[in-house]
């Protein structure tokens, strides 16, 4: 039997109600995301989240159709809703064709009225349909005559059609909506908005639930929760209608708004200059930040549950197997020996009888250094051989690479290279014998292991390793869709390579590497804003990625696991600030809470990490340790609209202190270079610079 890719469906909008229920995963106990959204709390909430953070899945999970799925039809459903103490009315603002309510020769305030009226009709129909469905099998339990009368009274103009049952009201509201549709759609041609508004804003969105609660027993003590998804698809003025609901809500109504990070265009309310305030009128919930900030083991468990569910539903594993199924065991992770002994031997094989790339490059730089009198303690080319002999570690190419790194570091400090080489040689011997736990090699391995390994892979034509389930979870950084997309591509590659993933064979390193690369490309193109803004952000991210990559692969990188930077926004121009904000809003950058303390100026700068999904694009680390502090000029050169020359100057100035033989103190124009400052990462409490 051919097994479909279990990770094929990655968007909640593509899922049926059954799939929403089946694929749903939450954190256990008090850590539950649902509990954080607090469906029974009357306090309105804005749920922020990047694309793919799971907003839609969560909100749909709270909606009425899913409540019924959980509790069952009929009496069981009614009891379930009563015990839930909320009724979820989910809708997507994107399905309103919001652009219809603008222009066409009509002033904006007219459109605001029309939109509000239209929303009242729309919401009323959703409510009535829900109530009809709840009591479909026992309409007699509802006090229909009184209910119908009170609903009619909510209208400014009493219905001219006979109203004998709830369905009649539904039909009436539908016909009012159709009349509005025709008027709105024809307005562009006739230039007249021929529409009579027969309901006052709020009368239905807030008033109808009150009426229903009075007359429908199931809804007596239930909170009506409007779940307004895709809020970013509304215009500023349309958002004001919902802001007004947030402000004027009364029991038994509340509203939860799902919106992308960039999606709030206004916090004002209709017909007044007043604004809603966070924690006063509403509270915020930032979903991807919340997921990212969970403990690492909790994130891993959450991801494991996601995978287990998919594999069980898809038939890859049996449900009884699921509880103990550990996805992490199904991915090859390569040589885990800290010295890379086995893999290192394989890599070294092709350099038998000749210099490894690290040694060849070092030799070249030492000779050049002698020529320009920049190799401390060395006078002639023969001295180079002595250094090379001391640094070379024929038995372990990885440890040799560490030795080369240590020599570059000594060189940058202007130490005698001969003395340094002797120390390094001794340190390598100790480290290899297992006795050098405090040796320079051991210290460097502690902080720079992944960077030196990355350099080794790169210079020996190996591909960078982004492998292992834990790595994929870290890469997704609070975006479950990113994790599923990684797994989707890996699964495709794995089967293409003839493997039987999660059944009889582990996923190979190659399938993981290729799948991750594809997922990273998807993220880069999918996560960007549309239009010119997207292009500018993409260009800026490309420059940033290039800078971080060049620093990571320099001779003497000063920061370990460099994927972060802080910015001096005081010196940055507006276009650069905007692009920076857009990059964050579109999840290409993650803002680090607490920022970065500038030790020299005493300032707290904003700090960002390149989204780990983008790490493979520029061979950057997934982890975050070191950071560089970008000056205002540098921010302008990377994120602004400055010429490419300005960026080239930044690259040169940043790189020159890290490249042999000069490890220069002057930039290409001869002026004194700015000191590269060591940074303290407050979120890790680690001293991350080797300076």
């Amino acid at each position, binding site marked *: 039997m051919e097994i479909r890719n279990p990770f094929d469906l990655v968007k909640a909008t593509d899922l049926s109600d059954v799939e929403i229920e089946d694929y749903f995963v939450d954190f256990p106990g008090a850590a539950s995301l649902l509990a954080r959204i607090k469906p029974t709390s009357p306090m309105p909430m804005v749920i922020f989240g990047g694309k793919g953070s799971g907003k839609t899945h969560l909100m749909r999970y709270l909606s009425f159709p899913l409540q019924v799925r959980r509790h069952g039809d009929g009496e069981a459903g009614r009891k379930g809703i009563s015990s839930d103490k909320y009724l979820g009315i989910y809708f997507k603002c994107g399905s309103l064709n919001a652009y219809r309510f603008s222009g066409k020769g009509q002033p904006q305030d007219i459109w605001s009225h029309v939109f509000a009226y239209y929303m009242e009709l729309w919401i009323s129909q959703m409510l009535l349909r829900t109530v009809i469905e709840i009591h479909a099998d026992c309409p007699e339990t509802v006090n229909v005559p009184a209910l119908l009368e009170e609903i009619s009274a909510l209208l400014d103009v009493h219905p001219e059609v006979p109203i004998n049952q709830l369905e009649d009201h539904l039909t009436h509201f539908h016909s009012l909506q159709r009349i509005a549709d025709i008027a709105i759609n024809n307005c562009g041609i006739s230039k007249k908005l021929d529409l009579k508004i027969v309901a006052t804003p709020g009368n239905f969105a807030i008033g109808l639930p009150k009426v229903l609660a009075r007359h429908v027993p199931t809804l007596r003590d239930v909170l009506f929760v409007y779940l307004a998804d895709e809020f970013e698809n509304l215009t500023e003025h349309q958002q004001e209608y919902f802001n007004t609901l947030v402000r004027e809500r009364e029991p038994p109504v509340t509203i939860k708004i799902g919106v992308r990070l960039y999606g709030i265009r206004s916090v004002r309310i209709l017909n007044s200059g007043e604004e809603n305030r966070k924690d006063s009128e509403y509270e915020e919930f930032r979903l991807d930040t919340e997921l990212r900030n969970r403990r690492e083991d909790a994130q891993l468990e959450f991801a494991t549950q996601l995978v287990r569910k998919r594999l069980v539903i898809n038939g890859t594993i049996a449900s009884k197997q699921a509880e103990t199924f550990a996805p992490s065991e199904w991915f090859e992770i390569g040589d885990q020996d800290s010295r890379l002994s086995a893999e290192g031997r394989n890599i070294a094989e092709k350099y038998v009888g000749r210099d490894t790339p690290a040694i060849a490059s070092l030799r070249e730089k030492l000779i050049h250094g002698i020529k320009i009198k920049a190799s401390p303690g060395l006078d002639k080319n023969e001295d180079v051989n002595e250094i090379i002999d001391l640094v070379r570690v024929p038995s372990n190419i990885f440890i040799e690479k560490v030795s080369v790194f240590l020599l570059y570091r000594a060189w940058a400090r202007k130490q005698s290279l001969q003395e340094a080489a002797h120390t390094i040689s001794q340190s390598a011997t100790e480290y290899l014998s297992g006795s050098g736990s405090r040796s320079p090699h051991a210290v460097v391995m502690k902080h720079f292991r992944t960077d030196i390994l990355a350099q080794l892979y790169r210079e020996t034509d190996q591909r960078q390793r982004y492998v292992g389930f834990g790595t994929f979870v870290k890469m997704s950084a609070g975006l479950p869709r990113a994790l599923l997309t990684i797994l989707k591509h890996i699964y*495709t590659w794995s*089967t*293409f*390579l*003839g493997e039987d993933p999660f059944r009889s064979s582990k996923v190979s390193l190659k399938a993981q590497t*290729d799948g991750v690369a594809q997922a990273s490309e998807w993220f880069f193109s999918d996560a960007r804003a549309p239009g010119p803004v997207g292009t500018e952000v993409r260009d800026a991210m490309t420059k940033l990625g290039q800078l971080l990559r060049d620093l990571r692969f320099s001779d003497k990188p000063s920061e370990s696991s460099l994927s972060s930077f802080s910015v001096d926004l005081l010196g940055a121009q507006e276009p650069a600030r905007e692009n920076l904000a857009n990059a964050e809003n579109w999840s290409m950058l993650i803002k680090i809470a607490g920022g970065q303390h500038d030790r020299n100026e005493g300032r707290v700068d904003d700090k960002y990490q390149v989204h780990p999904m983008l790490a493979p694009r520029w061979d950057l680390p997934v982890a975050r340790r070191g950071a560089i502090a970008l000056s205002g000029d540098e921010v302008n050169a990377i994120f602004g609209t400055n010429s490419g020359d300005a960026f080239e100057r930044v690259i040169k100035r940043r790189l020159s202190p890290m490249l042999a033989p000069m490890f220069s103190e002057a930039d290409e124009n001869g002026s004194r270079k700015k000191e590269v400052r060591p940074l303290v990462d407050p979120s890790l409490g680690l001293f991350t610079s080797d300076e």
Partner: protein
Amino acid sequence: MTEDLLQNKIKVLINLMWDDKFNWPTVERWLKNFEDPNGDGSLDRLHALFLLSNFSYFNSVVMRTLLRAMYRDLVRQPALVNIRNIHGNTRDWNVLNPAYEGFLTKTRFVGIGNPSESGTHLLYYFRQENELSKDLFVHSHELFSVQPSGQRLIEMLDNVVFLDDFCGSGDQATHYSNSLLRQLRTIKKSVRLSYFPLFATSSGLVNVRNNTIFDQVDTVAELDKSFASVSADSRYFRNAEPPLDVRLAMALSNKHGSLIEPRHPLGYKGCQLLLGFSHNIPDNTLPIFWSFGTSARPWFPIFPRHSKLGW
């Protein structure tokens, strides 16, 4: 171009265009054909992969689309243009529809080759896709059958359209049709005889045009000499960067082709095509893709060809 990039491209082709016919281990098995125990073999491997990455495989969905295009562009539209000319350039469908129905009743579609061959195999799909009556399709011998009116069928027709999937050298169409066409023409001088292959090489079309009495020879997709994949004119190597080299690709194809298909090492009459269809692979394609080899030199084909006996 690196092997990784080629692998990426081939994966996309397999997933999206080649109906997931095989996976990478199958490609590896095919690549083993090229291994040389005495050599490095990496260049041969790279060239084989490059050729594979340029292979055009037309799956059944695409074939059906092409059959619709064939009917629309080569049969229906020209006939409608003709009908409009006759009827004062009218656009009135009340006039055009009955006239076109009349055109169809005096037209028959015939597959080239015997009924087991691919030209005739396509007729079924051609009829389905274009919603044509099965009465419009006949075997060639039926053209001579006597109808209830006492006439032979050919006498009642204005058009006979011969359909084929592929015209490589044009030899098959020439050999097959010459005696048949002359007999038809003898019986009915005015009948219009057309030959429409879905794909055809430019030289094959010229051969058929020059050496048969078809009134019309046309195709949906014409392949000029740049489709000869390992020739100096090859379109595939036009922008290929070293170490990819068309001369190496020619040597590779020829070396193995000579062993597995000694009579036509670069495909029938040296066509060198990189072409395959869901129902079969033309023998004009490089044999390294489709041949099973010989008992002395067995070969694992990546796109196996279901062979006729003889060429």
